[in-house]
């Protein structure tokens, strides 16, 4: 399990989610791996319209790798846009 370690600099990673179902699934998965996250609506109108965004307390490269490894679907990585 990839738990945040003492001395780590906590960063936020934002990813868009295709549906609220995917968002909750990802949130619960990340929670099981030691990462807290929050589901929000997209703070601005995305290119597709209404979207759920997952704000993850964790380094982008690490959490994205973790989601990829466990086949957790997500949309677009929005870290720089939040």
């Amino acid at each position, binding site marked *: 399990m990839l738990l945040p370690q003492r001395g780590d600099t906590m960063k936020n990673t934002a990813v868009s989610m*295709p*549906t*609220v*179902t*995917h968002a*909750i*699934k990802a949130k619960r998965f990340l929670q099981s791996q030691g990462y807290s996250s929050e*589901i*929000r*609506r997209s703070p601005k*109108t*995305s*290119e*597709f*319209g*209404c*979207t*759920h965004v997952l704000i993850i307390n964790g380094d982008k490269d690490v959490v994205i790798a973790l989601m990829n490894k466990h086949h957790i*679907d997500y949309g677009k990585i929005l870290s720089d846009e939040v």
Partner: protein
Amino acid sequence: MAVNFDNAATTFPKPRSVASAVFTAVSKYGGNAGRGGHILTALTSEKVFDTRQTAADFFGAETENVVFTLNCTHALNLAIKGIMQNGGHIIISGIEHNSVSRPVYAMASKKHISFSIAAVSDDDDETTDNFRRLIRPDTKAIVCLIAGNVTGQILPYKKIGKLCREKNICFIADGAQACGIMDIKLSDGINILCTSGHKGLYGPAGTGLLITDGKYHLDTIIEGGTGSSSLNLEQPDFLPDSLESGTVNTVGIIGLKYGIDFVKYKKPERIFSHESDICRRFISRLDPDYVTVYRKLGVNYAPVVSFNINGMAPEETAEKLSKRGFCLRAGLHCAPLAHKSLGTDNGTVRFAPSVFNNSLQADALAEEIRKIYKNL
């Protein structure tokens, strides 16, 4: 209080936990799942997800591949029309419910598709071969029930699933009479499982499930708001939203979780055994001199018994039993193909216990049937 033996239509009573969950849903989870970002919608979305995950675990699917529907008929329509929208050939069994035969017939009558009906034999291998013989190069799907709603006959669904896998054909299974009393999993060879939530899963009426392994794309037959990709005029192409347009039945869905949890706690095989014991007891109390039971030796049955009092129309029998406090369904049970196969053109009376019935109730029913016959 009437005794309900019409549980193949919908189970009643429901577990107390389901009733309690429905009350909580109405009083607490009033947001519109997946729409907006406020606290009410977020809480409701989480509860709907809980049910989705519970169903996914129960049937061995990915969470997002569980689609909530109004009932099994709705799920079957989404599956059949979703697979067959661009034409092709489909095979159904000779004992299908109208939830399968009508959408297939409707598409065929508009020349969109063609279909064949595989006869159901007492022998499982023969039934499987009957399906195999009907496969053509343009066959896209086989759709059949797992257990029949008239006699309860269990079809060799795992063998049919294997056949479909070999031939690269989509297998759509109607689990309405099987889910909750049999351990059904997508890994049994089922590509798309359709079932009701309000029968063997003990959820509220107005709930159903379409569960897919994701191998076959389903075109949509209903489009609309999903709370996702709203700028796009095209329906989202990802599950579950592609097949879940409009507000879902949050109250029913939240209740359904507790129904599935109840079944998991009781264990489907134990429920099957309990209900089958009641069926055997009921049959044993019926005198074959005046009651015909539509069962054969060597055939596997789910706990449903079709019978008739000789010389009496099934509706008349059911009406007399209703006046004596027993609820049973009579007629064709929306399955004319099954009655054609069975040779019961006027229908049957159907005895369908649930986990809440017991053998003493079956004894009492059999005694009332005896009295009705003696008064003929």
